[in-house]
């Protein structure tokens, strides 16, 4: 039966167990079930965005969607508008408050205009007007991740995005997640890199390298795609010492938080060279793609220097930068 089980905790630290213990795309049933832990549920954006994308997938299959164990423990999911998107009747109650902080509730994004709307809401909803460095980084990641879905996923339901700013528990951070149930990374890259079709882990590694795109028409990308979006998004997470997580098919990649500033400053072009990386394989695939980025607000420092930092990590080649006319 297509079933998505939300245990009592789904955070980037334990995301492997959440995915390994689910097989949400199984055949052979007349309904789909979203099952919450009966007593306590703590969900980070990755679980919320995946649940929303999966729920829409189930509906697209013509399966009635049922949620179980709704109650106080699912009030946060309610405030994040999960049940609203899924068409499940549940009143989270206005009096309920979870951990302090601000959030961008789940939004379904199917058009370029939707992307602009979500980005426009981020500052007010996350209360980031006094932290322009974090705001810039969050908006950047949200834009790149959502446009990846719109351009490459072929997801009939588009993408689901949400974010949460954690301001009490350390480390202070903004966590963003984007999920879809589209064609997945291997299928997208497979048109240009056939080997990616055979190995999801390899496909993820390719997708995170700069200059790799399934839309590639020439050596340095198409007029509209350079294949650097996921690389730069991963770099922003790394540069603030936060988590980066990417799931597609039966493979996932996770970059863990940096333990100190020295670890933050080392950036690898090949994500699989990162010392604090995890590579997972799962029995049951995720039919689509899910990404989560954690930006640590105390570590973001100077956003303007991010690209210089990324630039310095790319091995020096003969360049024409000196000929660019800035006035």
């Amino acid at each position, binding site marked *: 039966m297509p079933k998505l089980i939300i245990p009592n905790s789904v955070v980037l630290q334990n995301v492997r167990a959440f995915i390994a213990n689910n097989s949400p795309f199984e055949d052979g049933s007349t309904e789909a079930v979203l099952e919450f832990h009966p007593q306590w549920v703590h969900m980070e954006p990755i679980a919320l965005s995946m649940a929303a994308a999966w729920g829409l997938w189930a509906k697209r299959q013509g399966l009635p969607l049922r949620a179980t164990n709704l109650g106080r423990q699912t009030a946060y999911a309610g405030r994040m508008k999960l049940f609203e998107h899924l068409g499940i009747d549940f009143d989270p109650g206005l009096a309920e408050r979870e951990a302090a902080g601000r959030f961008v509730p789940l939004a379904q994004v199917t058009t370029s205009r939707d992307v602009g709307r979500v*980005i426009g809401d981020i500052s007010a909803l996350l209360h980031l007007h006094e932290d322009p460095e974090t705001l*810039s980084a969050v908006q*950047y990641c949200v834009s*790149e991740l959502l446009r990846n879905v719109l351009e490459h996923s072929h997801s009939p339901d588009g993408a689901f995005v949400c974010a949460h700013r954690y301001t009490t528990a350390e480390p202070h951070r903004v966590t963003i997640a984007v999920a879809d149930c589209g064609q997945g990374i291997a299928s997208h890259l497979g048109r240009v890199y056939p080997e990616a079709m055979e190995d999801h882990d390899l496909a993820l590694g390719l997708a995170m390298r700069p200059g790799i795109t399934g839309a590639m028409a020439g050596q340095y*990308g198409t007029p509209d*795609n350079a294949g650097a*979006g996921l690389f730069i998004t991963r770099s922003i997470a790394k540069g603030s010492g936060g988590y980066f997580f990417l799931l597609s098919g039966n493979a996932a990649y996770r970059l863990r938080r940096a333990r100190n500033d020295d670890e933050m400053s080392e950036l690898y072009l090949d994500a699989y060279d990162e010392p604090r990386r995890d590579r997972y394989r799962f029995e049951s695939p995720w039919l689509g793609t899910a990404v989560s980025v954690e930006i640590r607000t105390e570590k973001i420092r100077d956003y303007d220097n991010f690209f210089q930092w990324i*630039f310095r990590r790319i091995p020096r080649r003969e360049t*024409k930068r000196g000929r660019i006319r800035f006035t």
Partner: protein
Amino acid sequence: MRMRIQVPSGSNGFAEDKDEARVLRIEKLLPALERGEGILLDFSKVNYATQSYIHALVGEALQKFGDQVLDKLEFKNCSASVRSVIELVVDYSLAGFPDQKAV
């Protein structure tokens, strides 16, 4: 002759709409370059931009005309982060990413 293109501000000075960049490229930038005109790209309304936006705006011109096109392009009123992104896009558009053969 030099054409002036005002780059739109996007959402609160964040230029990220690639569709918008594509329109500027196809309708203004490339035709002007084909005619041999210079282009002034004015970023005064932009605080920062995504690499994808800058790529969609100028990447094709760099790949099509090579480094000679830099003599035709002027980037005006760029913030530090926009400047960095332009440098990155120019760099890989002309020289490729590492592990790729440079032109």
